[in-house]
């Protein structure tokens, strides 16, 4: 297993280089440039050309890429145009907020969706099932920015239970309870889409497993229904869920872009929006490579979880 892991992780390097080439070309293919963000409307043709020259953007694209790659391989992802600081430092300053939000959302989604999905499968075609399916449908259907604003209007403005935005109140950055209250609405918003997907998957996988012959055999042997459900059916139903967990990384990052913007949550999702708006090429590349790396690592973790759920899977 160790050898497999090392091989997989080494394999990420050429993959990341390939991803970086595609990203580099895509980012530079976008119209506009960083001069607008750097100088706003206070520019002229001459100053725009001067800025591009000072940033090295007057060089041919292959030269720009090789220069960037050379620095990146030495651990230097460049300087953010927007913030004038090393990209790694800028990302590091915002990563914690997104990890906190995504971890909370994933935990909430799993803890809420799996029991509901199990109940929904076991009580298929009852009102409980229909209610759970309705919740899932709503979760998938509501755009996260709309749901976020709705939650703010209801729980922050009308009921005054929780704050409307930000990570902490003024001067309360160290107050755990205050930070928790700030996290409630964005976590629910980000979790909603994932929760819906997990719920639907749990239900359909478990329904499918419950139809399998080994479940009938287990019941025929006189095992308790709870044991049949949890040890036999649910364990088999886990496989698609593990795949979904691996895939959820990219959905969580995608969702974070909107959720963080609505809730003024200072994570990498909002940073990405700002980087796109400012055409901050180094920061955009750094952020996209981080997401690519997270997806690759997510896939490796998925494979590991597969082996834990199904010992028949060998490491090759």
């Amino acid at each position, binding site marked *: 297993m160790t050898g497999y892991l090392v091989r997989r992780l080494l394999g990420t390097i050429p993959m990341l280089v390939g991803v970086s080439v595609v990203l580099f070309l895509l980012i530079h293919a976008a119209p506009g440039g960083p001069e607008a963000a750097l100088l706003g409307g*206070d520019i002229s043709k001459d100053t725009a050309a*001067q800025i591009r020259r*000072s940033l090295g953007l007057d060089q041919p694209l292959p030269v720009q890429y090789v220069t960037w790659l050379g620095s990146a391989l030495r651990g230097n992802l460049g300087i953010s145009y927007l*913030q004038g600081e090393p990209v790694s430092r800028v990302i590091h300053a915002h990563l914690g907020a997104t990890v906190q939000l995504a971890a909370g959302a994933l935990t909430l989604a799993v803890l809420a969706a799996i029991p509901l999905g199990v*109940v929904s499968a076991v009580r298929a075609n009852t009102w409980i099932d229909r209610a759970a399916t309705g919740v899932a449908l709503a979760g998938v259907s509501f755009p996260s920015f709309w749901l976020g604003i709705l939650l703010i209007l209801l729980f*922050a403005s009308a009921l005054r239970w929780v704050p409307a935005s930000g990570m902490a109140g003024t*001067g309360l950055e160290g107050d755990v309870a205050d930070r928790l209250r700030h996290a409630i609405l964005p976590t629910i918003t980000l979790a909603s889409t994932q929760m819906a997907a997990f719920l639907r998957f749990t239900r359909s996988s478990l329904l499918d497993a419950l139809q399998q012959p080994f479940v009938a055999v287990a019941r025929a042997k006189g095992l308790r229904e709870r044991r049949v459900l949890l040890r036999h059916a649910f364990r088999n139903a886990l496989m698609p869920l593990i795949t979904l967990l691996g895939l959820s990384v990219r959905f969580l990052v995608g969702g974070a872009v909107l959720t963080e913007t609505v809730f003024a949550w*200072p994570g990498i999702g909002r940073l990405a929006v700002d980087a796109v708006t400012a055409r901050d090429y180094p920061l955009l590349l750094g952020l996209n490579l981080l997401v690519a790396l997270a997806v690759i690592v997510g896939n490796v973790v998925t494979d590991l979880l597969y082996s834990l759920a199904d010992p028949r899977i060998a490491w090759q």
Partner: protein
Amino acid sequence: MRHWALRSRPGFGAAIVTWVVLTAFTLAPGSGAPKDSLTIGLSSDASFINALIASDGQSYKVEWSVFDCLVQYDQNLGIKPMLAESWESSPDGLSYTFHLRKNVVWQDGRPFTADDVAFWMYSMLNPKVRAPSRAFFGGMAGYDELTNPDHPADPASLPRKPVEVVNPSTVRLNLAYPYAAFLGVLTCPRGGIVPKHALEGKDMNTAEFNTKPVGTGPYRVVEWRKGESIALTAFDRYYGGRPPTRQVIFRIIPDPVVRTQALRTGGIDMLDDPPADELDKFAKDPQYTVAGVYTPTYQYFGYRLDRPPFSDLRVRRAMAHAVDFDIIVRKVLRSYAVRATGPIPPTSWAYTPKVTRYPYNPEKAKQLLAEAGYTPGPDGIMQKDGRPLRFTLKGDTGTQSVRDSAVVIQDQLARIGVAAEIRLLDFPTFVRQLFASDFEAILVGWTGHPDPDPFSYTIWHSSQWNGRNFAHYKNPDVDKALEDARRTMDLKKRRDAYVRFQQLLADDAPYVWGYYPKEMYVYRKELRGLSLLPAQAAIFQSLRTAAWQP
């Protein structure tokens, strides 16, 4: 089949929901800022807090409190002392000698001297420094030589230097020609002085200073959480006395709905850039003060003027009669704006209402198009020599008022047989195309300066085709008027020149003048001491006098 095991324990989901609700109930929300603190909601973060290299409006809002300038505007847009306690100009108008305050210290405790002013000015003129306001200092002696991007001159080689340090508290700034707006361009926030000791020998564009600045202003930056908040605290050794409010915090809340709700729920005390549809509600609520001011900002519908169809004066006048900006002001701006008649707003001493106007009159527009040789084509679109009067109207997709106005303009032009195709672009793309003159028609605005010169000369003078005159306007009479206004120190003569300039422009109809929007703010009723100036975001200059009513 019985499933007792599942019935016997509550679902985790239900438990989580219960926990969230209980948490919400048991944890009362914070009451926002304590009363020695003021929290302001901004729509986006600052880029750099360095008055020399940051040109975006959000950075300016913070810089007003961190950096002071040689001089500043008073309530009537007259010039009054700031870091310079007095000054005199030479009889020929080519030199200004400033006598600096002697009790000023930087926020790190070092004394402020004339060397700092010299360092700031040479940095402004250094082509390696990304100084967006450099063009405003085009009148400085040696400007062309010092700002040459390929071979910038050594100041020592200049026959006449732009800056002379007379002694630690006296500095002389030299001009190449009499420049009437000179004191105006020295004002904040563009004219914020930065310290020599903190920046000398460093790359100004990437220096750590830009996030941890040192100014001479009443507030210093204590913490900047990028994308989240900027915290300022009162500077105890400020030469003007410690400001009454101990702490000012700028919170970044991009979504306008959420920003508005943050004011209502106590998360912020002052709302910057409030949504127009919320203003009426706040105005009726006794808990809030709604304040507004007209600034030297105007929106317009413009075109490339050096090629058909808009090189024809009759077509331009037809456009002016065809577009009803009054209805845009009423419906889109909800009357938080007034119709514009030219580039100089009514708040300016140079403004004149006595200009040619083009009231909404579609029939007159059609008549003008007919005079220009246009006839209706088979598809109803006006055409001339087989070419339909069809063009693309570009704008910034990020601005709601632009999106709404574009649709109204398109509909109104269709009524006279003109086809405008709307193409909204994101800001970086739009700006690049703007300055490359890559457009037929545009819907955009200019944020001006309290002095009419910077944003008149650089937009309308024919020498500026590579600068802000991207519409490629050329009129020798306008050039002459702008030069006259720039080079005389006599205020009456300046005003006469600007009146002539406005009348010439109005006759020429180079734009359809849109409106002067009102800059609006909403803040808690108990907050006192804020004052509005007819200059962009100048309310932030008054944070130093803001105080909570006991």
